[in-house]
């Protein structure tokens, strides 16, 4: 049992460390832009780049999974991202900083993609840039199944399948000790119940919030972990994406605000012990507090996970920055160390998010003391 776990762990580490090697596209002697590679990795994408290799004719071959693009632009338009990335020509541009960049267009569809943003093309079939290098074209609403959206679905499914397997072992009478995956899931569920929900919300009211807290915890955790797996279907920086953390933080805020009792609102609109004259100052401060708490949740998760991804990639990138395999002797042990640390961070951030959510909810439902 332990041996299998160890083997799986070693494989994971090997894959983790090999990820940047796959994702960096370097022909012999050509310098690799590590910063660009890192930024590309931590951002969302409309295709899932798996690897690039150099074929016999010194041409680069990309292996990617093409994800569907869904646009709302006077009706729903669905097409494969393949029609951007590999069918059409790249159009070279010069940025205001004097560097060359490129964007992809598909004139048949009338859309162009620049830095993973989709724009409507102008009449000439091109994008317009202002002096600062921003695109001025109109944007359709982009509901594409991007790398991160795909990860969302995949992790949800994975979570459901794993947890369903755990539930199965309870089928008999539920009096046996947990078996199989349940042996792993149950302590966490009990931990969330006792140390997060009961501790912060209180024995009387915690039950109502258990589904939210449990789902948030497991959802963040599994996505943190998937983010550490370097190849498809892992490796997307979902929990380090501001949209994801914003949404979850907004959920916490909504749950907090909608479960807030009389006492909670009294504290905001007429804080006890504060002179009436000060209330015009206090009320806005308290209202900012409603936003500030989930804002901190949003930033904390985003920054921690993104930083972890950047560090692992940057350490591996040392090899390519200096162009020598010898640097692997330094960079791989360091990546390994950070990689293991990230396993802890994955759990810790899920815990902190859930813990603070429970704390905020607990404040909102607390009885007068």
């Amino acid at each position, binding site marked *: 049992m332990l041996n299998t776990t160890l083997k799986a762990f070693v494989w994971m580490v090997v894959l983790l460390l090999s990820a940047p090697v796959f994702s960096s596209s370097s022909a012999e002697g050509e310098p690799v832009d590590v910063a660009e590679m890192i*930024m590309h990795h*931590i*951002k*969302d994408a409309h295709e899932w780049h798996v690897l690039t290799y150099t074929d016999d004719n010194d041409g680069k071959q990309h292996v990617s999974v093409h994800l569907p693009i*869904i646009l709302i632009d006077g009706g729903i338009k669905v097409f494969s991202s393949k029609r951007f990335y590999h069918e059409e020509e790249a159009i070279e541009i010069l940025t205001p900083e004097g560097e060359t960049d490129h964007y992809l267009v598909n004139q048949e569809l009338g859309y162009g993609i620049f*830095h993973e*943003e989709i724009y409507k093309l102008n009449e000439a079939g091109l994008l317009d840039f202002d002096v600062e290098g921003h695109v001025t074209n109109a944007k359709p*609403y*982009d*509901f*594409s*199944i*991007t790398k*991160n*959206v795909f990860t*969302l*679905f995949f992790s*949800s499914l994975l*979570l*459901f399948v794993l*947890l*369903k397997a*755990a*539930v199965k072992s*309870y089928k008999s009478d*539920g*009096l046996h000790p947990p078996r199989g995956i*349940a042996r792993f*899931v*149950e302590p966490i*569920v*009990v931990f969330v*119940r006792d140390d997060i929900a009961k501790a912060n919300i209180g024995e009387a009211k915690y039950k109502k919030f*258990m*589904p*939210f807290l*449990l*789902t*948030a915890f*497991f*959802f963040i955790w599994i996505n943190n972990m998937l983010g550490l797996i370097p190849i498809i279907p892992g490796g997307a920086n979902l929990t380090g*994406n*501001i*949209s*994801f953390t*914003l*949404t*979850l933080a*907004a*959920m916490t805020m909504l749950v907090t605000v909608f479960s807030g009792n009389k006492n909670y609102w009294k504290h905001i609109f007429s804080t006890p012990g504060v002179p009436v004259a000060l209330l015009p100052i206090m009320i806005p401060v308290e209202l900012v507090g409603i936003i500030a708490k989930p804002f901190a949740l949003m930033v904390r998760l*985003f920054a921690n996970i*993104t930083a972890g991804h950047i560090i692992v990639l940057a350490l591996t990138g040392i090899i390519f920055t200096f162009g020598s395999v010898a640097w692997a002797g330094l960079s791989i042990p360091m990546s390994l160390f950070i990689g293991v640390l990230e396993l802890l961070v994955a759990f810790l951030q899920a815990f902190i998010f859930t813990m603070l959510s429970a704390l905020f909810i607990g404040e909102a439902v607390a009885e007068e003391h």
Partner: protein
Amino acid sequence: MDLITPDLGLVFWTGLTFIILMFILTKFIWKPIMAAVNNRENNIQEALDMAKKTKAEMEKLQTQNANLLKEARIERDEMIKEAKITSDSMIDSAKSKAQIEADKIVENARVSIQAEKNAAVAELKNQVATIALEIAEKILRQELSTDEKQKQLAESFAKDINLN
């Protein structure tokens, strides 16, 4: 910076996925797991309570038993004591009764022995008197067998009378 600019599509999908996931997991996962865990915990608690209760009951029973045993012992001792007293008194009364009876028997025996003795003495007296008469008769016959002797006797009597 587009790194910190929220993307509408991803916000939409995250929100939708999270809410759907929360409902699905609540229905199929959290409820059964929580129910099972609570059920087990309740069972364990009940079993513990039951064990405690049983232990207390056992102790109560044991003390009860001990008390019962003690009482029984005391009762037994009392019974033995009483029996002893009763038997002692029975023996005593029997003894005294026997003594009285024995005395009575001895007394009766003595009385009848006395009576027998008296009768025997009386009988003996009679016999002796009879024998003495017979002897006296025989002697008289002998004395008065001849005329001479009669004369002699008469003379001796006459002598005695003369003396008077």
